[in-house]
């Protein structure tokens, strides 16, 4: 067996956990046609599928293949980090969506969730443009079904699906268009090869074409991470969509979007030596995107009365914070040899992503738990006086919201602090250093603006009395497992962030 063949064979072993997930999903699809399958069975099978995937990750883990430029898959630490995040999120969302669908549709829903989980996990592994695109679509396509299945009857739900579908397809087209430019420039679809070739090209006359490629790729992925101005679907879809799917939408596309952005634009770091101007243009692009995204998200968040719309804009704002990390990512290349790394953009993004996931999914679980058709929990007024009627729900929601505000001892604070540090710690030789300081200040101002609307909810829950009949008491279901896990994550990563920071750092070390 020659080494090329060996490498390829090993590379495809990397996808075993995802293949297992898709296999279990197929079983679920088939089961969906059988009679007598209820949502509990579907849920347990889905959890079992995730367990199998996790086990096969640990047992069938191959070594990293030797020749990066030939494999479409790469099992580096980054891929493993994204995979673990995807599987953990998948499990949390299965529990979240346990009672989301009726018995008949549940197995279909769970199957879609597993496929999307597999997709987001593959984004981290992808080492090829085509493969990356397929992985991203593997996240998007099941999402359409997941948006549609639980809310079949409501008009708002249908509007949400159509809106998401149309814009998602358009963003995929833009992404593909950008990829075609990259392929046209470099003549290869392999990411490792692109990282080598593109820096040399952007030095010459091709820099305009490369900028166009970057803009289109960012636009396509900007839809997934809800960056301004590609966020317009978010509030409507969040408001109309089923809460379990909204939790999925709030987090999983952001993970895959940022993972793809980090993978694609890692080359900017190595391009600075030959194409300083080009790198500056790209950094400026992300700088502007970050500043506008967080400001727009927070300012529009101020105007919202509906909780899920508010969370949608909060998601936009949080994407803006994370984009700080992307904007400063190339500056690390300007670091002197003796200058040690303090906080880099990518590691801050990875940390903040998980923090954001825990607090957003957590918030949505509590809202979903309280909501019932007779006594909807949709607006800020609906949670008024929650402390009196549902003290534990109120306490959990309080923790998540304080974390979103960014108060110390929560994951939200540790993440924001790392992001601000990464902006302030741009090496001395890096261009636009003052602008990054300004970006940190803009971030801080934004955090203060954002506090206003999160605090409104906290105020309503703890300090006001209920306006209408109290929400009926509900028994704690699997949903609560998700809520408690999220709360533990939120507090633990805030009080003692050390292990998580080390993991994030190791994950992005190879970029």
């Amino acid at each position, binding site marked *: 067996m020659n080494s090329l063949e060996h490498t390829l064979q090993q590379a495809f072993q990397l996808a075993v956990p995802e293949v297992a997930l898709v296999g279990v999903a197929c079983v679920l699809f088939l089961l969906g046609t059988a009679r007598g399958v209820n949502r509990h069975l579907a849920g347990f099978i889905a959890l079992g599928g995730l367990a199998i995937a996790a086990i096969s990750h640990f047992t069938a883990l191959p070594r990293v293949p030797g020749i990066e430029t030939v494999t479409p898959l790469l099992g580096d630490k980054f891929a493993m980090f994204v995979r673990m995040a995807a599987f953990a999120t998948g499990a949390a969302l299965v529990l979240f969506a346990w009672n989301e669908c009726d018995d008949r549709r549940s197995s279909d829903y769970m199957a879609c969730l597993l496929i999307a989980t597999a997709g987001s996990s593959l984004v981290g592994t992808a080492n090829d443009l085509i493969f990356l695109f397929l992985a991203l679509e593997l996240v998007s396509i099941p999402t359409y079904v997941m948006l549609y299945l639980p809310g079949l009857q409501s008009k708002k739900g249908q509007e949400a699906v159509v809106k998401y579908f149309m814009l998602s397809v358009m963003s995929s087209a833009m992404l593909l268009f950008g990829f075609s430019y990259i392929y046209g420039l470099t003549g290869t679809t392999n990411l490792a090869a692109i990282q080598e070739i593109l820096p040399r090209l952007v030095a010459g006359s091709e820099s305009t074409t490369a900028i166009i490629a970057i803009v289109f790729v960012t636009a396509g992925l900007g839809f997934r991470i809800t960056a301004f101005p590609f966020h317009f679907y978010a509030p409507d879809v969040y408001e109309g969509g089923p809460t379990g799917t909204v939790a999925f939408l709030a987090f999983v596309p952001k993970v895959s979007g940022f993972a793809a952005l980090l993978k694609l634009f890692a080359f900017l770091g190595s391009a600075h030596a030959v194409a300083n101007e080009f790198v500056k243009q790209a950094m400026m692009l992300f700088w502007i995107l970050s500043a506008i995204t967080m400001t727009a998200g927070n300012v529009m968040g101020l105007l919202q009365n509906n909780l899920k719309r508010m969370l949608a804009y909060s998601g936009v704002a949080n994407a803006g914070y994370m984009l700080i990390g992307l904007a400063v990512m190339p500056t690390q290349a300007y670091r002197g040899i*003796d*200058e*040690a*790394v*303090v*906080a880099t953009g990518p590691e801050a993004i990875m940390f903040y992503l998980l923090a954001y996931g825990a607090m957003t999914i957590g918030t949505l679980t509590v809202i979903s738990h309280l909501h019932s058709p007779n006594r909807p929990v949709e607006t800020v007024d609906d949670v008024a006086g929650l402390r009196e009627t549902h003290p534990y729900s109120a306490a959990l929601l309080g923790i998540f919201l*304080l974390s979103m*505000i*960014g*108060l*110390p*001892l929560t994951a939200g604070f*540790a993440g924001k*602090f790392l992001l*601000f*540090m990464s902006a*302030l*710690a741009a090496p*001395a030789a890096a261009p636009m250093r003052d602008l990054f*300081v300004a970006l*940190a*200040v803009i971030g*801080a*101002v934004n*955090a*203060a603006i954002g*506090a*206003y609307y999160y*605090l409104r909810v*906290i*105020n309503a829950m*703890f*300090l*006001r009395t209920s306006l209408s009949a109290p929400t009926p008491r509900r028994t704690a279901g699997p949903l609560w497992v998700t809520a408690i896990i999220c709360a533990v994550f939120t507090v633990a990563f805030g009080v*003692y*962030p*050390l292990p998580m*920071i*080390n993991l994030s*750092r190791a994950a992005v070390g190879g970029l």
Partner: protein
Amino acid sequence: MLTSDLIRTLLPGLLLLPIAAGVALRFLDGQKARMAALSFAIAQLLLTIVIVAGGMFEVQDTAGLEALTNIREKRSGPVFAPRCVPGDPMTNGKQTFTTKFDVMPFSSGHPKIKAAQFFIGIDGLNIWLIGLAGVMLLPVVLLSWDTVTDRLGAYYSWLFLLQAGVTGAFLSFDLLFFYVCFELTLVPLLFLIGGWGPGPNRRDAARKLFLYTLAGGLMTLVGLAGTVLYVYDRTGELTFSIPKLAELIDVNMKRADEAGQASWQNAQMYLFLAMAFGFMVKIPLVPFHSWLPGAYSEAPPGVTVMLSALLAKMGTFGLLRICLPLAPDATLSVGMPLLGFLGAFGIVYGAMCAYMQTDFRRLVAYSSISHLGFCALAIVSFNSFGISGSVLHMVNHGLSTGAMFVLVGMLTRRYASSQIADFSGIWLKLPMLTFFMIFIALATVGLPGLNNFVSEVLMMGGLIDMRNTKVTGIVFAAVAGFGIFLSAWYTLTMIRTAFFGPLKEPQAAVGEVKDLTGRERFAIGPLALLCLLLGVMAQPVLDVMKRDSDRLAQVADDARLRVK
């Protein structure tokens, strides 16, 4: 050595005890919660007394510091030397004034990149504030005894968590840990004011306080991170330890050439403004004070005492602990003109507003703005008198304004009104309360023999520093002196209106109005006693902080040579 070890072991207790109390009190209610809160407060007071009493000698013992004295640089030991640090690695059984409790690292194993740490200790600047925090808790619990009747367990629980946050900020020698404590006090405050405030505007007041302070705090955070990274750029050492940073800045500013100093001074200016912003909101200095009257008058009486006695001090203490040593040149070039002007303006503005108030609590609230303006002014005068005077004044103001709010709380508990105009001749009805009120009022206006006089004289001495005259030092002193006069004017007017003259009472809130009960005497008595004690024998207190305030003033003297 033995005391040092004992205090080192006990020091985390100052934080853990209130946190444990905060958790335990959650599960109690009614009389049980009251009794438990009282026991915890007494335990906290005893612990504080042990630590302060032992710490007094530890802090004055400079034997360990002399070893660190650098003759060539003409420096007498480090700028800050936190004693009795928990987790001190100890070389040869001697304190190293550092800790090994890492919390948030920024590099794996790089020797010059240190982690953010759990770094607490005592020195001359914070020891009396820790004492103040321990002392004030007891009157607060006693005052809340009958002014709070609803959900007692939760109320006391938040109160103790607030105490933990304040104490943590005073104890902290790590920038990030300081910030954590500084910001975390907002959560208890939000719930305490919004949940138990007596007035209808309590929620707005709580929200305003939260958002103002948070916004200021975030700017401070950027300033702190910026300072840490700027020092890293210049020296190659990344650390969040305040003593280490102060040291690096002190030494490297001296060694830098002209161009290096100029660029550093330029950076310091922005960093100082960012760092000071949060503290200016917290103190508060005019024009960042608009959250204060609402918060002070809407909070439950006990919390108002905490706010005025302790939380406002976090702002002034932050200036002292962080802004001064980390941006010494900017303190002189920007801090003195800017904060000085705001402070001086605040003294007069606060006093004028206080005179115009018709409500007891708002009057004391505005008087607090006036006094704290004076305190901030003395801090930025940046010399030995100013620093020791302002630390002493923080304690004195905490005691006297705290006591004033305790008395106002006792008065408003008895009557259904807090309008000054509704009262007259209360002396006839409540002689003992009136006695204490006059006593505390005299302390507040700076009567010789009572506590505020000493610190005001010291601060005034700091302001009349001829080296600072080019930034109108003498004018500031004149304004401050005028402010003291104004404070006598509005305080004595209030006393005359409400307590002298023919008897006129508003409607009683609870049955028959009686004079101070035993519990209330126990709440106010010790405070009044301490006011007297600090007035007649302040020298021991000043001796304890002498080494640390002198050393900080030395930093200022070096900076004065650089700032043209």
